[in-house]
């Protein structure tokens, strides 16, 4: 079943066309990565999908419903964790609940129930500045999750983490995604990360940006650590790198 669908998205800034005729689909439970060079319009596309920005042409659907330019329908997580420094961790993650009109006490109780699943037990009363980078990112993910939308748009959520933490976060994220039945559209410029996590990779190249290639990653999930070092992995990587470089040169 198709969950999120974008059709013929076109967007320009100051007369320069950033995206032209971008279409993509996200099916239920799927993790799709959007891979492309920086400044290629990935974040712009995400803002359109999240309803924060209006495209000049094209439409965004969730299921049958058109949501072009309507925020609040998908969870959206940015590169920065954006935990508010003056709120405790629990009050930060409970923010989407408060925004939906839930009472403070109830929101806190509900949020507290997920702290263990997200590996955050014991941090409820702390402030974000007291947490490590990985923990902060997990808290941000819990906040995204508590927004309770079945679709998550993640804009380079792990790019600021060191390699080991990143690996741990990948495994953990796939596990959580499975558990809470989340579909994810994922921006990254890290090819390895994209191959490891995705069911499908869309390559956004050129100027104006278009999705010029889709690659299915057939390796079943959960993927073992060996996959990272296998010949197939390298084959995928070769294919993607070649395509991205070709797009650049042209």
């Amino acid at each position, binding site marked *: 079943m198709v969950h999120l669908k974008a059709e013929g998205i076109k967007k320009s800034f100051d007369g320069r066309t950033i995206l032209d005729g971008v279409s993509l689909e996200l099916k239920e439970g799927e993790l799709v990565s959007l891979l492309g060079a920086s400044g290629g319009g990935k974040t712009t596309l995400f*803002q359109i999908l*999240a*309803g*924060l920005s209006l495209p000049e042409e094209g439409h965004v659907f969730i299921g049958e419903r058109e949501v072009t330019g309507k*925020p*609040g329908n*998908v*969870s*959206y997580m*940015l590169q*920065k964790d*954006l935990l*508010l*420094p*003056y*709120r*405790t961790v629990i009050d930060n993650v409970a*923010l*989407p609940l*408060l*925004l*939906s009109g839930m009472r403070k006490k109830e929101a806190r109780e509900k949020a507290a129930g997920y702290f263990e699943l997200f590996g955050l037990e014991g941090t409820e009363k702390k*402030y974000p*500045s*007291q947490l490590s980078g990985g923990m902060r990112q997990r808290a941000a993910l819990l906040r995204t999750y508590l*927004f309770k939308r079945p679709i998550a748009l993640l804009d380079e959520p792990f790019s600021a983490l060191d390699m080991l933490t990143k690996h741990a976060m990948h495994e953990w994220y796939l596990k959580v995604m499975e558990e809470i039945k989340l579909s994810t559209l994922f921006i990254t410029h890290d090819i390895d990360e994209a191959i490891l996590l995705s069911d499908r990779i869309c390559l956004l190249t050129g100027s104006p940006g278009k999705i010029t290639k889709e690659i299915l990653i057939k390796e079943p999930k959960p993927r073992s650590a060996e996959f990272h070092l296998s010949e197939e992995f390298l084959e995928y990587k070769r294919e993607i790198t070649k395509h991205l470089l070709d797009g650049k040169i042209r």
Partner: protein
Amino acid sequence: MIRKSQSITNKLWSCSAVLGLLLLWQGVCSAGIIEAYLLPSPISVGRALITEFPALMEHGKITLKEAFAGLFLGVVLGFLIAVIMDRFHGLYRAFYPVIVLTQTIPTVALAPLLVLWFGYEMTPKIILIVLTTFFPVAIGLLSGFQSVDPDEVTLLRSMGAGNVSIFRYIKLPGAMGQFFSSLRISASYAVVGAVISEWLGGFGGLGVYMTRVKKAFAFDKMFAVIILISVISLLLMKGVDYLSKKCMPCEQI
């Protein structure tokens, strides 16, 4: 722990400096280098503080009342101005220069006019204090509102938040730091403003008392009231610090 012992050492240094200056002052007066009617010695100032204590308290109460009323109204006005200007950018561009202009008018020049218009009672004094205290609060809050991370706003918008929620969850708490540093300035302005407005006419208050003892050439009492005004200002600032610690527990880590 280290920070604490460091701050104790710092205090020790500043205390001994003050003590040294007082000793020097007393020495100069006792030795008769400066005539007593020109510069009273610290001991005679202390004596004046004690003998005049009831009168000082009586006048102090009036000054404090004016300062608090003015500060409160000034903060409210500053807050409203900041919120409105942040919300409506056109108003910001139109009125920001006007507000800055109000601050270029010297308080001492304005006070007699206010007395003429509003009489010798509390009203002109409170108006003057409001005029001096709203400004730091308005400017501080405004820059606090405007310095919020636009990505935080985007995040809340993506969760379907409207302007009110964005104000409540991001802008207001994000501006608290700047608000309290402005409030600190406004609190000291409030006391000084009250005293200045009392100089120019009134029935009671530390400023009125000050003009009276000045006319009587009672310089020891003059110094006593100056000390009292400083102490009040310091206490008010401490109060603001305490309040800011209570309101921003995240700064305490």
